[in-house]
């Protein structure tokens, strides 16, 4: 193996650039002008994208089985003895990065789409307050997401996982003065906590079973000193300690899937994603469509070695994925908020990816993840451009005929719609066809997969229906824009339309990575991912795909195209040719329409079952607190103290003070007669003086008489 070049040895720089941007914003962002914020935050993502590109290219030139590069920056959890299913091991976890074909795809999608969305945000957020705060959070998100996808072990992946959850919460609640936005942020955070609890248990079970949380020893200079999950798993299976379908594998896989379902918005934990649309639109595009929500898909693919040995868990993943796909698609059909439609569409497409993972087509799932990142980011940014040009309007019922006023947005949105609807040669067709093809091939081995395939096919039709409906309602037909808003419509600035154009380009061409499938060859994308996903060899059980002839493959493609065109035709019929028809349709099935409009009342059911029960519990605990702790404990002791002090006060007042008062009262009463002489009026005192004089004269009268007689 050649010595790794600059880009591979400096892999750690990829997440570091956005972290530096985020730290800069945190400390001095408030004082920086917008141009400096752009320089730091958008520049950091550009640097990370270039480094990611360089690293991926330098990995790509290596032979397929050597496309692993792992670097350990720091031993984070230092080795310590721990009992596990493979005996006493030295458990350790690192702050280390692993670049293999799987993380290559993720890192390119995250930095590439992330960079375009950062550029777009410069235009979209130009008139918003908290500009530096927005970009600081976005850069922090980029750091967390890159840590997540580059992590070489589950614990570090969990750090990134929680980091993106935090940034998601912060950015959904970006307009935190708006109650609905801060509520949506809290909802996202709490629903994700449920999933994360399962994920954490899964990680603990993995470490207790394999004695390590590191994914693989591949790509290290000295692989023998390093326990990876894949190697340990291979040894366990080889020695028949644990076999295909062992309950332990199923438990681990299901626990990890709980986490994936939370992060990737699958039934029953999808409810937070539609509410997350309260955040700014670039956030919806980056976090809640292209990158963060696909972390669950990535994680399951990363753990594919375990999933391949747990058929029961695979079935659960596939069924949950298929159910989510069709369930969310039906809700998307009737929503009137442009971003809500796209949110349910995202949930539905994520369901597709899990369907792919569940039937064992891990590469197809990742392929759809990548194409979806391009076209869904494009659609969200296009929706953002529409909202921007209409001054904040999100209701599709108040749009229409916008193709004349904002043509650049229209063309790119149109490309995104065709791509997601699965019409060739746009990318969505290839990735969706891969998934449906694998489901069908699986069905040939096991009849029950036929149902999953059918659900996927119907969902493809529904996807085309709701996406074309959105396209037609916004850009075609008659304008329903209020007259006073009509004059302000303007095309978005270049910073917004250029990323749209680039994303549109990739929405077309990214599917061509699977072009050879058309003439019956293996998909190059799948071959590229194979080293990351091939799992472990086992003689006790395996996932089998049937191989059909060319004719069947083409028939499958024709079926999926037919369903997509059916959706297109229906949308055209209902929303362009006869705009009143869909209202009439809704009126003729009022109950179904209401059910869909209220999203199957799932939020209400969750409120009744969980949220309000938790609130009841809190109320009960609050009552306990106020009645027992405060009432009996605090108020009771207060009451006792008061009672005692009242007795003490009585004693003080009547006995102690009484004695003192008695001492004063005795001389006071004795002095009573004497006091009467003191009138305070000096005349009285003069009288007393005269009386005294008279008494003296009376007493000495004789002498006075003698004296006066003696005078002559």
């Amino acid at each position, binding site marked *: 193996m050649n010595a790794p070049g600059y880009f591979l040895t400096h892999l750690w720089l990829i997440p570091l650039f956005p972290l530096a941007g985020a730290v800069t914003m945190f400390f001095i962002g408030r004082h920086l002008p917008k141009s400096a914020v752009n320089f730091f935050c958008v520049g950091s993502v550009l640097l990370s994208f270039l480094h990611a590109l360089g690293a991926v290219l330098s990995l790509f030139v290596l032979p397929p089985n050597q496309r692993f590069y792992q670097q350990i920056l720091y031993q984070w959890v230092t080795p310590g003895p721990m009992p596990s299913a493979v005996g006493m091991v030295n458990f350790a976890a690192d702050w280390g990065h692993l670049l293999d074909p799987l993380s290559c795809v993720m890192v390119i999608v995250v930095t590439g789409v992330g960079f375009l969305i950062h550029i777009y945000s410069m235009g979209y957020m130009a008139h918003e307050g908290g500009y530096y705060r927005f970009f600081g959070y976005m850069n922090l998100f980029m750091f967390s997401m890159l840590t997540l996808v580059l992590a070489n072990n589950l614990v570090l992946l969990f750090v990134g996982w929680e980091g993106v959850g935090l940034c998601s919460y912060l950015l959904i609640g970006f307009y935190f003065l708006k109650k609905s936005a801060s509520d949506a942020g809290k909802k996202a955070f709490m629903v994700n906590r449920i999933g994360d609890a399962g994920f954490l248990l899964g990680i603990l079970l993995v470490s207790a079973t394999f004695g390590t949380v590191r994914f693989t020893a591949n790509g290290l200079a000295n692989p023998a000193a390093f326990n990876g999950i894949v190697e340990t798993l291979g040894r366990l299976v080889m020695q028949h300690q644990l076999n295909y379908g062992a309950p332990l594998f199923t438990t681990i896989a299901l626990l990890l899937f709980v986490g994936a379902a939370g992060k990737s918005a699958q039934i029953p934990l999808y409810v937070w994603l539609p509410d997350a649309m309260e955040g700014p639109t670039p956030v919806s595009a980056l976090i809640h469509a292209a990158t963060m929500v696909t972390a669950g898909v990535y994680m399951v693919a990363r753990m594919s070695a375990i999933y391949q040995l747990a058929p029961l868990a695979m079935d659960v993943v596939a069924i949950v994925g298929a159910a989510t796909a069709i369930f969310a698609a039906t809700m998307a059909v009737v929503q009137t908020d442009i971003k809500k439609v796209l949110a349910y569409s995202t949930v539905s497409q994520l369901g597709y990816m899990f369907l792919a993972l569940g039937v064992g087509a891990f590469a197809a799932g990742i392929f759809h993840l990548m194409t979806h990142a391009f076209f869904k980011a494009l659609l969200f940014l296009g929706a953002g451009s529409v909202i921007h040009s209409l001054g904040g309007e999100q209701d599709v019922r108040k749009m229409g005929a916008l193709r004349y006023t904002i043509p650049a947005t229209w063309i790119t949105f149109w490309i995104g719609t065709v791509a997601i609807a699965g019409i060739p040669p746009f990318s969505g067709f290839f990735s969706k066809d891969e998934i449906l093809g694998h489901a069908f091939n699986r069905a040939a081995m096991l009849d029950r997969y036929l149902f999953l395939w059918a659900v996927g096919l119907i969902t493809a039709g529904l996807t085309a229906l709701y996406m074309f409906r959105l396209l037609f309602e916004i850009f075609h037909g008659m304008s329903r824009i209020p007259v006073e808003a009509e004059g302000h419509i303007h095309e978005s600035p270049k910073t917004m339309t250029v990323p749209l154009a680039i994303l549109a380009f990739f929405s077309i061409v990214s599917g061509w990575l699977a072009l050879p499938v058309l003439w019956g060859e293996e998909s190059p994308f799948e071959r590229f991912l194979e080293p990351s996903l091939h799992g472990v060899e086992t003689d006790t059980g395996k996932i089998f795909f049937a191989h059909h002839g060319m004719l069947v493959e083409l028939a499958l493609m024709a079926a999926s195209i037919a369903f997509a065109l059916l959706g297109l035709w229906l949308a055209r019929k209902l929303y362009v040719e006869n705009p009143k028809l869909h209202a009439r349709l809704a009126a003729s099935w009022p109950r179904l329409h209401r059910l869909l409009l209220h999203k199957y009342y799932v939020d209400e059911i969750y409120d009744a079952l969980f949220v309000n029960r938790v609130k009841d519990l809190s109320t009960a605990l609050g009552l306990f607190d106020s009645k027992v702790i405060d009432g009996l404990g605090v108020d009771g002791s207060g009451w006792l103290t008061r009672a005692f002090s009242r007795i003490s006060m009585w004693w003080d007042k009547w006995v102690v003070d009484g004695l003192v008062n008695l001492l004063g009262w005795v001389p006071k009463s004795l002095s009573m007669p004497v006091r009467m002489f003191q009138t*305070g009026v000096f005349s009285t005192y003069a009288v007393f003086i005269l009386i005294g004089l008279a008494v003296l004269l009376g007493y000495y009268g004789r002498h006075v008489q003698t004296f006066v007689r003696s005078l*002559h």
Partner: protein
Amino acid sequence: MMPIGHYLFLSLALLLIGSFGVIARRNVIIVLMSIELILNAVNINLVAFSRYYGEVAGQVFALFIIADAAAEAAVGLGIMIAFFRNRETVLADEMDLLKW
């Protein structure tokens, strides 16, 4: 030369009139004037006995008392003015701050 008894009678009369004024009048100004009468009764006594005994000491004493009376009147009137400013009264029976 007039017999001393006349002087003593005049002095006694002034003393009694003054004493009556001090005791019975409400207006403190009049009380002060009555005190002047009493002091002058003393002065008459002193001057009369000075003549009677042919000694000058009594007359010197009378001069002292006149000075004393002037000082007393000045201080007394000063107190009264200060008092009036506070209480707005010069009536003796309304002055009972010395009580108890």
